């Protein structure tokens, strides 16, 4: 059965969900999302260390959506960047889920990169980060996967991901980061 975005989203929104957003990811939306996240972390009296980690990870996740979140034509949306972001307070940890559509041919690159990062020790993640940072192939928009390495480094946990088949051209990628 093909992926049902609305069902997937509604199942994620339970009493632990302290922030959720689904929709356009343009400049202004990114600013508003980040501002809301800061308000929530302030209200939660989160420690500066965890606060910064969460904010940093969310900056990277949301900007990934901004740069890579595509809109399948079937959705008939009036904008071209679409993404989902959910933050859950699970008591002992925060779970941040980001989701976006991507064309099927992008699957292998992203899956291989996350799988690779998930096998690395923290020292190896640091070495990979430095290698990509100093690599001329890395551009402002990314491309070298520095954002995803940074997320792994800051969270210190493996990323959980799912590729869900939407139609013959598009997949939906969801990534969970635990802090």
């Amino acid at each position, binding site marked *: 059965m093909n992926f049902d975005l609305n069902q997937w989203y509604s199942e994620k929104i339970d009493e632990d969900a302290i922030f959720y957003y689904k929709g356009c990811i343009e400049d202004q939306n990114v600013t508003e999302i980040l501002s809301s996240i800061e308000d929530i972390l302030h209200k939660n009296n989160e420690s500066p260390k965890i606060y910064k980690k969460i904010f*940093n990870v969310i900056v990277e996740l949301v900007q990934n959506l901004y740069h890579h979140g595509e809109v399948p034509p079937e959705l008939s949306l009036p904008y071209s960047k679409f993404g989902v972001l959910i933050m859950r307070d699970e008591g002992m940890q925060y779970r941040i889920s980001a989701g976006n559509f991507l064309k099927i041919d992008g699957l292998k690159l992203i899956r291989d990169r996350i799988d690779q990062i998930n096998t690395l020790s923290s020292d190896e993640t640091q070495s990979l980060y*430095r290698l990509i*940072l100093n690599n001329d192939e890395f551009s402002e928009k990314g491309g070298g996967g520095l954002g995803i390495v940074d997320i792994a480094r800051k969270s210190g946990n493996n990323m959980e991901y799912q590729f869900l088949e939407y139609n013959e051209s598009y997949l939906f990628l969801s990534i969970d980061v635990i802090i």
Partner: protein
Amino acid sequence: MNSLVLKGSPKTPSINFDPSTGTFLIEGRSIPENSLDFYKPIMEWLDSYIGSPEELTTVVVKLEYFNTSSSKCLLDVFKKLEGIFKRGHKVSINWHYETDDEDMLEAGEDYQSIIKIPFEMIEDEV
């Protein structure tokens, strides 16, 4: 040569580069979606400065957050200054981080591992 002064915003740092003293301050947040747009005028200003730099250039970096697209631009800033360092001018980078912010300390160490300019890691009590 005029100073380069840019006011900070929720997504971009305040910049105060004073060519008469060789003191360059980068402070606040650097999390724009399109970092190149923000850093382009800074790089152009630096291109002029490195033509006739002060004997000592001190870069003070006091960042609360920066995203990975800014991290590349910051590296480019440091690489430009590394050029004058290699020509025999004194350059130092004072990298500030708040107590307990190990991620920001590590970020400074990342640059320190790549760039030959001396770094001083400065812990700021919150």
